[in-house]
């Protein structure tokens, strides 16, 4: 697998790409906190937040709808909030029967449900944009500057580095299983074939477990080799980066501007 198969970074020359990663992480987090603080039904503030998001999209030169296109990921979770439609007392809007129970959607319930979805949708878009305009190692470096303990950022850096390697290992294991477990040849659907391969569900689960154990051993041994190789190259407990990451005046202005916008958003949401 190519090393950047997991990467969400999009290389571009833009204002947002050049911004210090600390600023980007900070503004993203403040934006998400601000969304959580906005009251239900603060439509103008939600609209304003979306405009800010639009501005960020444009500044990133990735296209105004870049984050929108990738924002569906949080949607399945909306199912979990669906009960507020019926559970908050208010003026009934419409009702229907399902499985012998009458469900009544109230106006207060609808307001809350839509507000939860909008908050989530705005927040996830900013997070999507963050990784699209920041290289992951820079992101980790920013976290380090923002006082995330070094042991955690180092583990995350290693995780990111070896994710591709171990994913390749998994694909090798999965391919081997698929080619050796007795599949029914000639069946049309691949899924059906995989389902019939081997024996029952318990047996398949056991094989998956064995593979996980096997992967563990290979990873363990590999980590030993990696450590020795690092020692040989002079590793002394710290990872270095070539990027200096200095805050320039434009970074300070951008932070001040973003925070002012977010305060304005809160003000609009309340009055």
């Amino acid at each position, binding site marked *: 697998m190519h090393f950047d198969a997991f990467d969400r970074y999009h290389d571009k020359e833009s204002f947002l790409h050049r911004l210090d990663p600390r600023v980007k992480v900070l503004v*993203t987090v403040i934006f*998400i906190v601000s969304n959580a603080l906005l009251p239900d039904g603060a439509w103008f503030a939600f609209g304003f937040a979306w405009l800010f998001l639009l501005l960020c999209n444009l500044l990133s030169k990735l296209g105004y709808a870049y984050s929108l296109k990738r924002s569906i990921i949080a949607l399945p979770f909306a199912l979990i909030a669906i009960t507020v439609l019926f559970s908050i007392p208010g003026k009934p809007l419409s009702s229907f029967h399902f499985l012998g129970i009458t469900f009544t959607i109230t106006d207060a319930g609808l307001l809350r449900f839509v507000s939860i979805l909008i*908050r989530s949708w705005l927040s996830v878009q900013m997070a*999507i944009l963050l990784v699209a305009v920041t290289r992951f190692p820079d992101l980790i470096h920013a976290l380090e500057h923002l006082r995330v303990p070094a042991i955690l950022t180092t583990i995350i850096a290693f995780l990111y580095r070896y994710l591709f390697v171990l994913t390749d290992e998994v694909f090798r294991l999965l391919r081997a299983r698929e080619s050796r477990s007795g599949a029914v040849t000639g069946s049309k659907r691949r899924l059906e074939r995989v389902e019939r391969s081997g024996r029952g*569900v318990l047996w398949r689960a*056991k094989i*998956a477990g064995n593979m996980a154990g096997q992967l563990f051993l290979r990873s363990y041994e590999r980590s030993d080799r990696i450590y020795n190789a690092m020692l040989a190259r002079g590793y002394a407990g710290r990872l270095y980066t070539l990027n200096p990451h200095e805050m320039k005046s434009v970074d300070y202005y951008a932070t001040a501007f973003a925070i002012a916008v977010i305060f304005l958003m809160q003000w609009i949401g309340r009055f």
Partner: protein
Amino acid sequence: MFYSPAPLHIPDGFLSLLVSLVCWVVTALTLGAAISRTNKSLGERQIPLMGVMAAFIFAAQMINFPVAGGTSGHLLGGALAAIVLGPWAGMLVMTAVIAVQALLFQDGGLLVMGANILNMGLVTAAIGYGLFRSVSGSSKTVKLGVAGVAAWLSVMAGALLTSLQLWLSGTSQLGIVIPAMLGVHALIGLGEALITVSALAFILQTRPDLLGEGSESAKAGKGWILAGGLISLFVVFLSPFASADPDGLERVAENLGFIGAGQSAPFEIIPDYTLPFLGETALSTIVAGAIGIAVVAVISLLVGRGMKARS
């Protein structure tokens, strides 16, 4: 394409600010303890090991087995990580996995990451290690059986905590979210248990030295056995109660002043808790909220101290 999201990752927007912050405080304190313990007991050698192990958990979550009708089961890994790496290292590894899932794939939010780490990384590790450790002298069959139960319970505990957080945030109705979440995760947990048990069996067979029993003294496990046991009891007793009688749990929460925590506008973070001398102003509730968080922080700090002293 490579990556199937697990249903426990809460996105941003679904938890209230108060619930998110309280979870972050608990998570941060536990991780602080984990970091100081790990720094003391392990050398720098362990850091690359933990990094590669985090990548292992991430990759192992891709190993799936077909169940039926196009669905498949796969590993979450919290219990397995704690059993093979020890509880503190397991927690750090799971934290890294959840952080990368949130940062890189937006699977789980940033503000709610504290809650996600707590549900899927910390509680699962405590249950997994605590229960497994409680039978450290027994035969292989008993050990594997207990590991399976622990893996199942760890998934159930994650689902229960997620449901409670969603309910306290006013996002879901208790009477629906608990039976739905626990029902689904009772099945997911079975897959988790099967994979965990056979992975452990495989490791025990091929490299028993890696699951070294003598590496930690018998005394060190006591705190974990207690913690794992208590959380398991909490799950075992609260789940049926909450499913059968959600009104009962709601009454208890109401009496404790939890309910409606996030259901109203954020300036009424704890509606009943206003400070008399500030009157019923926004400032008053913000200060009250801050005091609430501080109290939770102190309690968790004391609990953490106690656990540290014991272990």
